[in-house]
């Protein structure tokens, strides 16, 4: 027993001093950033190209254009006509995909380590060579509308979440959905996509992350060869309006015959790694873990296990955004329990937290779990590449990523108490209630 306890302590301490991912970063001559993350467990590599262009950069009236452009990037170039890109990756046993968030657009491939030059060549080619016309663009717009129907329009809870976000942010573009509003998606066209592409897709607005069974000595010359030869271009200023002061809490209630059961959500405007009181970001991550991180968390214990008021309860908080983040709470009432009673019980827990703070034991346990999660994060090829790419794309340094376990380990109860008091403020919140409606 004693031996095991000592080992556990040693292990928790280890990641704090060690390099977490052992990543290196460089800047190519044309301004393109490169990060290399060695991982020699499988003879494979992941390539990710992160463009610093997201939905929050969509021009007024063109919501969804960053995401639409992501779809259109698969439509081919002069050198690689439609279908050639996907076919040559598949022929080499690779997989590729892409995703868009509010802050960035990402293209990624997983392939055998000795085919890295292939995916570099393909990705570099479509950084400048995209060919679009209405014949391929218009059917793809229908694909995006079907994607929206599947993810959002067919799902009442997703529709409410979308409206809640638009209510929480009064002015900042994070209020718009990444996929875009239906009425605006319908009007997006070839010209809009090419305008965004020409303005923003350039090496000096991109980050290349290569993770896997390679090292930087091998990757750098390849990166210089394929990406380093692309000329940089003058980038427009990235204009993000600032969210003004909030004076009133928002509340939305949506009734839907398509909803299975009531659901309760609340979002608070919160600092991120890059906006607001940035020093509160790590304390808020620990707070989210203590309050709603799992079956041992305060909300789950109190609402689900002890008081039997909820079927589920938890928190979400991701500070990896350029502008303000969201600290969220969610719960589903048990049948027969009113949303009002559930909400009152959650508010009791929040008041207790703000009044009494967190106790040293739950703080220590939460920190240990989070540091263990950072060990588990290395048990995958794409996990570290994602973490590092996202950090660089929002303007964090590699040192911040590598030091995260140490920073989490250093979070104090006083920091959490302060963060809780300044973030869990009613006027900075939006509460959404989904209610089923009997079919008539």
């Amino acid at each position, binding site marked *: 027993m004693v031996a095991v306890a000592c080992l556990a302590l040693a292990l928790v301490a280890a990641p704090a001093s060690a390099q977490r991912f052992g990543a290196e970063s460089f800047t190519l001559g044309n301004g393109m950033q490169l990060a290399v993350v060695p991982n020699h467990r499988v*003879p494979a590599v992941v390539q990710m190209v992160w463009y610093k262009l997201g939905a929050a950069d969509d021009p007024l009236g063109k919501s969804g254009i960053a995401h639409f452009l992501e779809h259109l990037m698969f439509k081919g170039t002069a050198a690689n006509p439609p279908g050639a890109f996907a076919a040559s990756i598949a022929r080499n046993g*690779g*997989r590729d995909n892409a995703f868009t968030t509010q802050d960035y657009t990402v293209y990624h491939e997983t392939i055998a380590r000795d085919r890295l030059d292939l995916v570099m060549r393909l990705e570099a080619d479509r950084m400048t060579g995209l060919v679009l016309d209405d014949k391929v663009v218009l059917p793809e717009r229908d*694909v995006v509308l079907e994607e929206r129907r599947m993810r959002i329009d067919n799902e009442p809870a997703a529709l409410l979440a979308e409206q809640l976000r638009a209510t929480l942010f009064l002015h900042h573009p994070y209020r718009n959905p990444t996929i875009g509003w239906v009425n605006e998606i319908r009007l997006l066209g070839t010209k809009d996509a090419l305008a965004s592409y020409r303005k923003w897709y350039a090496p000096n607005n991109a980050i290349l992350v290569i993770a896997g069974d390679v090292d930087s000595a091998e990757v750098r010359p390849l990166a210089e060869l394929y990406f380093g030869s692309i000329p940089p271009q003058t980038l427009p200023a990235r204009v993000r309006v600032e969210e003004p002061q909030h004076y009133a809490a928002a509340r939305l209630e949506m009734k839907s015959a398509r909803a299975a059961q009531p659901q309760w959500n609340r979002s608070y405007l919160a600092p991120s790694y890059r906006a607001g009181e940035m020093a509160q970001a790590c304390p808020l991550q620990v707070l989210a873990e203590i309050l709603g991180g799992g079956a041992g968390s305060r909300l789950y214990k109190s609402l689900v*296990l002890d008081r039997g008021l909820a079927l589920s309860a938890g928190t979400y908080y991701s500070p990896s955004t350029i502008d303000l983040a969201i600290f969220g709470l969610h719960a589903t009432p048990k049948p027969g329990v009113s949303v009002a009673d559930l909400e009152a019980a959650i508010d009791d827990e929040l008041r207790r937290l703000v009044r009494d703070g967190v106790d040293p034991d739950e703080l220590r346990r939460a920190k240990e*779990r989070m540091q263990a999660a950072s060990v588990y994060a290395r048990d995958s090829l794409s996990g570290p590449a994602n973490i590092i790419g996202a950090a660089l794309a929002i303007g964090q340094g590699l040192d911040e990523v590598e030091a995260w376990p140490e920073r989490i380990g250093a979070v104090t109860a006083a920091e959490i108490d302060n963060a809780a008091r300044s973030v869990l403020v009613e006027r900075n919140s939006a509460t959404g209630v989904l209610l089923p409606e009997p079919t008539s």
Partner: protein
Amino acid sequence: MHRSVLALLLLLWAPGAGAMTIERVTSPGGIEAWLVEDHTLPVVSIRFAFPGGAALDPPGKAGLAAMALSLLDEGAGPYDTAAFKTRLEDLAANLRFTAGRDEVGGSLRSLKANLSEAAGLLRAALSSPRFEPAAIERVRGEFVASLSQQAHSPRALSDRLWMRDAFEDHPYGENVDGTPTSVSAITREDLVGFAGQRLRRAGLVIGAVGDLNADELAALIDQVFGALSAVGDETAVAETKPAENGGVLITRRPVPQSAVSFGQIGPKRDDPNWYAARLVNDVLGGGGFRGRLMREIREKRGLAYGVSTELVSFRHAGLILGSVATENARVAQSIALIRAEWRRMRDEGPSQAELDLAKDFLIGSFPLSLDTSARVAALLVEIQFENLGIDYLDRRATLFGAVTLDQAKRVAHNLLDPDGLSFAVVGDPADLTPTRIVPDPGL
């Protein structure tokens, strides 16, 4: 005791890559497990499966296996629910139990330093689950709520509707999680009986990956599984085939997009034509942009975000299952295209170029997918459960590579039945003639 461990080593070479060694480990207590050692991280993943799943749920009690598995970590041995979950969290270990139609099982991921204690919790969950009445009622409530969610989700509902119609008189037609009625009928005695009767060592398969050696694994599997009965459970499930009636079922729901599930008979995993069928399936309904359905439905016409098909191999039935979702006004077009492509593939088979691409992808992508210890552990369990042989990874590329164009065409011709292919649609489709309307599926 460590010296009595029997280890059989086998080298498996991933194409163009390094080796992965699978060791067959037999514990002093006589329990076998397969091991892939990997000491690059202080992490261990264990996965295991017991034969016999939801298909053995007694009539009227569908959901028994799933509910029993969900309750294993809700209190066991000396721990009540909160104590068990808190202990697990403090060890930063991840423990999951799942029920399938033909097997029940679980996985444990732990830091090496905490492995012994985490294994103790797993042992308690498997051999002395408490099934406390309060936990049963809470989990029952979660099941009923989740079933209600599924009944309101067009995608989940179309899948369930299709399965029930295809397996009308067979337990495969039942939902693994049951129905609100069947879940309400499950008693504590049923759950206790399930654990005693079904969590047994006979037929148990185990895969372990990560920072441990054969001696450590041998001790661990005796610790975890040693208390379980070694005697097998003889209950059997009948062989069956899904109905191929060419039907179009519709359940009307006021949603903008219709969810469609479709399928027909497919090969079982031990069918000698399985490899050819897997390649034909990739050409027809493969993911990415390889599949013909993806090209016709998404690329050319923008009718869906995704459309794909897969071979689903149950122990006692094989299927080809697919899904698509299209706005109500155009969903009839998606369905007509699927039938047309089904017919074209039956009549003409794949081209040589298509077959080659499918082979290259299925052979080349496989080793790249094994990048997490959990995925490798899952593969070790699958190879054992499906009796593919410990040298399977050695032979896999050849099994796909040896399929000829003639064979692929013949398998496509014999397998695909465009007129028998049946559809279940949930939404408000326009211009689609149903063979049957199912107003309230009662699911």
